[in-house]
């Protein structure tokens, strides 16, 4: 494994130049700047909203200073509320090449695109010249998510990812699992794995918050496709999703943007605090992936049964396919054939070892299927959180 060393001491496994629109009105201009290099390490992300939001501001700061990011070009319309100068200062303070283009000041669409393309052309050679250094297992942060789940997800891919998590965490890495709304019914078991009784209480409270939130909305995370695949209830889906976490002790509870404190297994709380606002907590899988990345995840293990094809901006996504039929239908999109467990062609430990080895290969520069196909999905919407209390990160309080 190798990485690019950043000034905060973290290392990235990619060296991405981000083009960032700060309101939907700047999206086209930002896309035109990034499109010239589509599919490579020039990537487009953005926040669509015009009104200010502390969560979105914090998320953008974390994402633009993610270790996989080497340089940042911000594209603003000019009249939106995003604190663009503050974001620019944060990125510059991190030592990264950064620039801000304001369309209303730069002379409109065409001139801004020209200036943006020129900045990208000047900056790419700087990134290419940056040296890499060895990356140790304990410097790696790995996130996991499931999407397009079916009845096979909880039987093959999720427990195999759990075995991979156990291996990576035993080697000193940080692992993050998430979506408390999909863990309803598992809170007692999670509490029994918590490093401290105070953390156990926080975990139970955070799942109760998720249950209240989804009950108020009148919806769960349960989709029609889940039932077609054989899952009947929320708690059944929860137990299957929970298997991704493996068997390590839970050492912390994060909120989006919080960084792990040392190696170990962390739960990420993605359900907003306070009264229900802004609609669904996460409108699609990529919103959760973005939150894992904001917590510093270098790479994402994505379990799918029905066959999600997504990747992500900033961090590579490894697709672990739970269903052997799906794998045969979508082989180009799937990195790991975990469904062969159902056909008696492999065991959970074998597939878990394969996933852990693939994480190391991807951290060494090997492209994932979604990277090779050019996937760079990104979603960031309005949310609101209160900071996590000291009981959530016992290692930091020591």
């Amino acid at each position, binding site marked *: 494994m190798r990485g690019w060393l950043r000034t905060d001491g973290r290392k990235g496994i990619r060296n991405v130049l981000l083009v960032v629109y700060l309101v939907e009105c700047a999206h086209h201009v930002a896309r035109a700047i990034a499109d010239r290099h589509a599919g490579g390490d020039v990537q487009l992300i953005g926040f669509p909203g015009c009104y200010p939001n502390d969560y979105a501001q914090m998320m953008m700061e974390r994402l633009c200073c993610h270790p996989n990011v080497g340089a940042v070009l911000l594209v603003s319309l000019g009249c939106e509320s995003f604190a663009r100068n503050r974001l620019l200062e944060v990125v510059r303070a991190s030592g990264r090449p950064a620039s801000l283009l304001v369309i209303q000041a730069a002379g409109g669409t065409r001139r801004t695109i020209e200036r943006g393309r020129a900045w990208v052309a000047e900056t790419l050679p700087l990134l290419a010249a940056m040296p890499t250094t060895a990356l140790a297992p304990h410097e790696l942060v790995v996130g996991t998510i499931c999407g397009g789940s079916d009845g096979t997800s909880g039987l093959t891919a999720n427990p195999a990812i759990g075995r991979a998590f156990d291996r990576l965490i035993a080697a000193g890495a940080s692992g993050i699992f998430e979506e408390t709304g999909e863990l309803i019914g598992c809170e007692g078991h999670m509490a029994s794995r918590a490093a401290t009784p105070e953390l156990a209480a926080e975990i139970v409270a955070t799942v109760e918050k998720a249950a209240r939130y989804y009950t108020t909305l009148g919806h769960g995370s349960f989709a029609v496709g889940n039932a077609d695949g054989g899952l009947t209830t929320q708690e*059944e889906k929860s137990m299957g999703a929970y298997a991704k976490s493996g068997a390590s002790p839970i050492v912390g509870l994060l909120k989006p943007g919080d960084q792990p404190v040392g190696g170990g297994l962390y739960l990420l709380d993605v359900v907003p605090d306070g009264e229900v606002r802004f609609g669904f907590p996460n409108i699609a899988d990529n919103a959760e992936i973005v939150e894992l990345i904001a917590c510093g995840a270098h790479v994402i293990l994505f379990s799918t049964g029905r066959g999600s094809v997504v990747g992500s901006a900033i961090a590579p996504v490894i697709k672990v396919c739970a269903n052997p039929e799906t794998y045969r239908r979508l082989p180009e999109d799937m990195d790991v054939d975990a469904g062969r467990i159902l056909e008696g062609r492999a065991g959970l430990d074998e597939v878990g070892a394969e996933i852990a080895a693939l994480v190391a290969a991807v951290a060494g520069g090997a492209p994932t299927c979604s990277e090779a196909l050019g996937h760079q999905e990104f979603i960031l919407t309005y949310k609101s959180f209160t900071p996590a209390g000291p009981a959530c990160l016992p290692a930091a309080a020591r």
Partner: protein
Amino acid sequence: MTHAPPVLLLAPEDNVLIAVADLAAGQIVPDAGRAIRLRQAVPLGHKLARHPIPAGGRVIKYGAPIGSATCAIAAGEWVHLHNLASDYLATPGADHGA
């Protein structure tokens, strides 16, 4: 194509088995030395009852309750939306205060 058993038992205390292939009505599947005759077709990834489950009884998978039977379920019956309901979100307000 494969000699692996057509069903999976995830935890010893479970009262459902998981089909790992599309199974036909009338098919016999093994379960801990017994044989269960399927009352309906059970698609890949879906559940079938190992034992009779009374109405209101808990359905156990992964060694944990995943909901309650909404009617009596016979051994070999397909277990899904028509006879199993969540104990959580299907009854909003029952388990959680305001």
